[in-house]
Each structure stands twice: as C-alpha cells, then as structure tokens.
C-alpha cells in the first residue's frame, strides 16, 4: 500500500515519502517551526480562526493549525482545554461561533458548513470520548456498519441480495480481522451494550477503522484500555500510519503519546499553545507545569509525597491556568 518514494524536497505538494521510515518522518518535520500554528510541508487539515463559546467560556479559540499528512499527531492539554470541542467542531458535530471567519479544509476540500456524515464520507472519521456503542446490535453488526460505500445500503438495491452479497462477505472478513486484533472476536455475536467500558473503547476504535479513513481522529482511545492491549494496538495504528493514514489523537497517557506520536500539539484554554516533536514539547516547562506535573516520572508510592506541600504544589500546577480562566469568565 505504501507509495513509492519520490524525493521531492520538503515534499510540499505531494508528500509522498516513505513515511514508514522514522528517519524520513523526522526529516520531514525537521524544518517545521516549533511554534503554535506553524505551517507543515503537506497539511491534510488546515484550520483557521475557529472559535466556540459556551455562555462566556471560550472553549476553543484556534487561530491557525495545520496537521501533517501521513503522520501521527497527538493533541494534548489539560482537562477542559477544548480538545473534544475542537474535534466536535471540525467533524461537523458542533458549529463554530459565527462571524469570526472560521474556515477549515480537509484534503483540499472546504469543510466549513459541512454536516457530520459528509465529513466522515470525505475520509475524516472520529471516535467519541464517551463511547457510543450501538447497544442492541451485535458487535459484528456494529463493525459492519462502519464499512463505507456499501451498495446494500441503498434502498433501491437492498431488497436484492445478489447485488450486495459479495461486498458483504468482503466487509465481513475485514471486520473479523479487525475484531481479532482488538481482542473482541470472541464477543462478536454479543450485543455491544454488554461490553465492558474498555471493550467499548476498543469497539469504537475498530468501527472507525472499518471506514478506511484518510484521517482518523481518536478522542482518548486508550483511556480504560489495559496496558498490554494498548501496546499491541499502538502497533496497529503505526502500521496504518505507515500505510498512509493520518492520525490525530487526544490522549492523556504520556507513554502512549511519547511512544507513537510524530508531532504534538498542546492546547490550553482553547488555544494552541505549543507544537513540536515529543521530546521538545515534553521538556517545555510550561507544558510540564500546567499539564504533566513535576512528579510525572516519580514513584508515587513514596509516602513522602503525601506531604501537604506536594499536594498543594500539584494542585497549584493544575489550577493555575484554571484559576486564570475562571477570572476571565468572571468578566
């Protein structure tokens, strides 16, 4: 599936390097300025001046953001930073504040006023942080629904099985493969409503992958998934990336972020506050301060940590920005 390597300098328009190669990826992003809103060699998603307010709270206020094609980009930021709202906006599940000149495009096509299904059809598929399993359908049916362009889904052809039998069989094979990888094959004939919290996350992700997206947007895909499985799934996601898929994901597990992301975007208070490769971003004092915390890599088992200072310190770190926001809200 991977495209042949054509060495365009910076790969501006085509971006057709072999992104399976970590070195190439690093090289690709090497020239990119590490500051919020920097331009990428071959952006698949470009967002401009997008804002969303909820009764005085500015949930999202992104003036410019580009997401590089073919890479895994992580979107991190404190709770309530606006990550999910940002996802909602660009996938058509929410509408940005009007009159701000909001504009965004995906794969060259304008998306400003496009409805959610159209966005998905265009190849940008998202998952939900709070999972949405189709409870009274089996796991496999959940999966089959994901597949795109099924001719049997058109009312005109639905009644005539020969018209869609073959496609259905192909889709089924693919679904079972994915389920197997997500450790859900055993559950394939169970109702999705009977899955455990983590299993629902898995199903949500697997179902989104059924659509063969050009770009997949995962909202905390690994929250609640057990570490061993997380690890193997990350491998899968990397393979998909290597096959050309673009990934944008929100995640709070820094190991996951560090492990697979090629690029990290940090959001806080609705704004993009930093961008860059993992090591640089995670070393950024502001990020550590507001997001990671000083004890990020320490062992919490130590009872010394239970001193009030540590707590208040932690507390302070996390609350600083929130307190600021609260003050802003007050006005």
């Amino acid at each position, binding site marked *: 599936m991977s495209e042949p390597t054509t060495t365009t300098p910076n790969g501006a328009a085509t971006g057709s390097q072999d992104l399976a190669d970590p070195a190439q990826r690093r090289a690709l992003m090497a020239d990119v300025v590490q500051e919020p809103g920097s331009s990428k060699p071959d952006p698949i998603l470009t967002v401009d001046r997008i804002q969303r307010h909820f009764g005085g709270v500015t949930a999202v206020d992104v003036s410019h953001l580009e997401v590089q094609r073919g890479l895994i980009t992580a979107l991190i930021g404190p709770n309530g930073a606006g990550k*999910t709202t940002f996802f909602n906006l660009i996938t058509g599940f929410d509408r940005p504040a009007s009159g701000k000149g909001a504009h965004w495009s995906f794969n060259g096509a304008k998306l400003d006023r496009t409805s959610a299904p159209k966005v998905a059809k265009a190849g940008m598929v998202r998952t939900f942080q*709070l999972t949405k399993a189709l409870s009274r359908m089996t796991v496999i049916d959940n999966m089959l629904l994901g597949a795109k362009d099924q001719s049997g889904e058109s009312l005109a052809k639905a009644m005539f099985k020969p018209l869609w039998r073959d496609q259905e069989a192909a889709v089924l094979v693919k679904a079972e493969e994915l389920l197997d990888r997500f450790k859900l094959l055993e559950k394939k004939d169970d109702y999705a409503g009977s899955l455990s919290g983590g299993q629902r996350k898995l199903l949500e992700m697997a179902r989104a992958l059924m659509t063969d997206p050009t770009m997949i947007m995962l909202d905390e895909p690994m929250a609640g998934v057990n570490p061993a499985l997380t690890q193997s799934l990350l491998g899968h996601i990397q393979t998909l990336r290597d096959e050309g898929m673009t990934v944008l994901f929100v995640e709070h597990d820094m190991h996951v972020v560090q492990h697979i992301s090629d690029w990290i975007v940090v959001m806080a208070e609705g704004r993009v506050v930093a961008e860059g490769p993992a090591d640089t971003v995670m070393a950024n004092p502001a990020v550590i301060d507001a997001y990671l915390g000083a004890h990020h890599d320490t062992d919490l088992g130590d009872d010394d940590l239970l001193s009030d200072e540590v707590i208040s310190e932690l507390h302070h770190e996390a609350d600083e920005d929130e307190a600021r926001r609260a003050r802003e809200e007050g006005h």
Partner: protein
Amino acid sequence: MVGVLLGMLLAPLLALGLGAGAAHASVPTLCLAQAGQTACVSGTVGNRTNPVEGADVVLRDEAGTEVDSLTTAADGKYSFQVTEAGDYFLFIDPESLPDDVEIIPPAPRFQAEDGSIRVPVKLGRTTAPDLEVRSVDYDADGASFGEQIIQSVAQGLRLGLLLALASVGLSLIYGTTGLSSFSHAEQVTLGGMVAYGLINVGGLNLWLGIVLTTVICGATGYIQDRLMWQPLRRRGLGLTQMMIVTIGLALAAQYAFQFFVGASQQKVLVRTFDVVEIGPVRMTDMSFVAMGVALVAIGVVGFVLLRTRIGQATRAVSDNPALAAASGIDVDRIIRLVWIAATALAGLGGVFYALVVSNGIRWDTGMQILLLLFAAVTLGGLGTAFGAFVGAIIIGLVVELAGPLGAPGDLKYAVALVILILLLMVRPQGLLGRAVRVG
C-alpha cells in the same frame, strides 16, 4: 281515510298538549296542520322571552279579505288556521304596540306594499311569518372584540391552570422515570369520578370531598407504584413496554368507569355556581377558586422541586438511577413520591375540571384531554415540570382564543397542535428544555 285515522290518533295528544281550550284568544300554542287539509300561520309578537301583549294581529288572504284577527295575550302568541294554500298577509297594527318597540321590516321577499308581511302557506305545514319586533334601543352588536378576547383569555387561563395540574404530574413522571404515561388522563377522570361518588352520591361536603379525593387519588399512585411499577422497574422492563402497560391500564380504567358509573356524564355537584363579574370577565365563583387552588398546588410542587433536595433527587433519579442509588438516594421512594404527587395532582385537577370546565365527569373526560396534556408537556420541554406548567397555560389560551381570533371552532384543538408543531420546529427542545452536549 288516513286523515280520520290521524285525527283519532291526535285526539289524546291534543288533549295532553292543548289542555283547556277556552276562549278564542287563548289559542293553542301551536296550530296543528293536517296533511292536505289545513295549514297554520302562527308566531309570536315579540318573542318568547320578550312577548308583546295586546298587539292586534290580522291575517288577510291574497284578495285582501280578512281571514281572522286577534289580540295577543301575555305570551304574545298568535295562531291562525287556514284551509287553502297560497299567499296570506299578516298585518299588525302599529298603534297597538307599546312605544318602546318597533317592527323591523321583514326580508324583501316577504314585504308587501301596505306594510304587512307576506306569508306563503302550504297545506299540512305551519308557517311562521317573518315578523320581527324589537325594542327601539336594540343593539345588534354583541360584546366588543376586545371584551371577547379578555373573556377568552380568562377562560384560557382557567383551562390552562387545570390542564397544568395534570400535565405537571405527567411531566414529573416522565422526568423521573422516562415513562410516557397514557393512563394519566384516566387519573384525571378518576379524580372527577371519586369526587362524584363522595360529593354527589355520598353527600359529603364539597371541600372535604375535594381533599379526600386528592388523598384517594394519591393513594392510587402509591398502590400502582407499589404493586406494579416498582416490580416492573426491578425486572428492567423497557420504557416502551411500560408505555403499553399504561395503555392497557387506560383501557381497563375507562371501561371500569363505564361499568361502575355508567356511560353518561355525571355531576360532581348539582348546583349552579354564582357568576362573578370582574370587568369584562364573567365566570363562576368556583372558577376563580379552582384557579386559585391550582396555582397554589402547582406553586407548592414547584417549590418542592426547585428548592428541596427531594426535588433535585427526582432529577437525579431521572438522569441516572443507578448513580442516584450510589449517592444514597432511595430511588424507589423518590419515584413513589412522584407517583403519589402526580396522581394526587391529576385527581385534584380532575375534580376542578369536572366542577368548572366540563361541568361534569364522564368516563372519557380524561381521554379527551390526553393529547392536550402531552402537547403541554412537550411544548414546555419534556421532563421539566415548570415547562409543563407554561405549556399547559399556552395550550389553554390557544384553545380558548382560537375561536375569537378566527379559527373555525372545529379546528381549535388542531390549532393548538399546529402551534405545537411549529414551535418544535423552531425550538426542538421545547420552550424550556436544554440542548445536550454531543461527544
């Protein structure tokens, strides 16, 4: 031959109706026309409510010959029997009329040159001449448009408040359990029925009866929840299934009412209430009482819902019963309270509805307003009790105002529903409902 027979048959009837046929002046109330033989010209100078006594009435035939004449008695009636078909002319001597009344000219087709009224007569028929006698200060216009509107608004508020009593409960049940209870309307009927039994049949004092009815209706809520809804919830019965259960209950209740009370309308209280006039508004004193009670009852419920933790607990239960239990809330108890409150309110509403709006109670009284109740609940935003109140008031106003504002009478409910649909298009979550977050 047939005529004779008829005559024979009529004799006893005539005797019954006409009583003592004494002097010429006191004619029978109705002259009896016999097929093919006679015809009658009869009518009233003035009218039945305002008859003119002492008017001289003359009937002439086409040739102008007087057929008969008489002077009206206290009931203003006159009646002539003729034996031939054709045009006759009725003449009233204006001199014989009192000064404060005048004769309005008849329709052109009945006008004759000499000021008399043409009366086309067919055999076997009774014809009433087009004689219109009115007092000179007669005003053809009724109440002014503004007054009509104000009166309708008052009636709309009355209807709305009483609907609100029921719809708030419906909304509470929906809000806490998610159940659309189609038998709620029968709870309203039940209120009226129990009150009928206690007050009309049992002879209880009105106020005592109302209180007792409310209590009994509340008890039905308790029993229902105890025996049915709670076990069903325990078994995890789906909401649609429960909805069907309410449909079954409604069916059973309706026929039980028919079984025990009969199919005709019954009065809660056989009494005509005094009419109170406040400006252009004219309503019975009981209507004002009903509105007051409704307001107070809804106020109390509103207070409980908004200001007490029980009220918040109902919302918590509706959001997430398992979590509510995990917070120490006795979910079953809260739901039972809601059922009791809802059925008691519906019962109270039923009594007053029967007292002042429908002037009686019938097995299908509730069923007739079921849709209005649902419309009210939806209009205000599903599951918000205050919304149901506002919705009910709006529905009440729309129903009462539709007529005066020009909608044909048989569409007044339809108008209320059209408004509902239009509103939902503009504001899908209802007036007071909140939009929910996606993702």
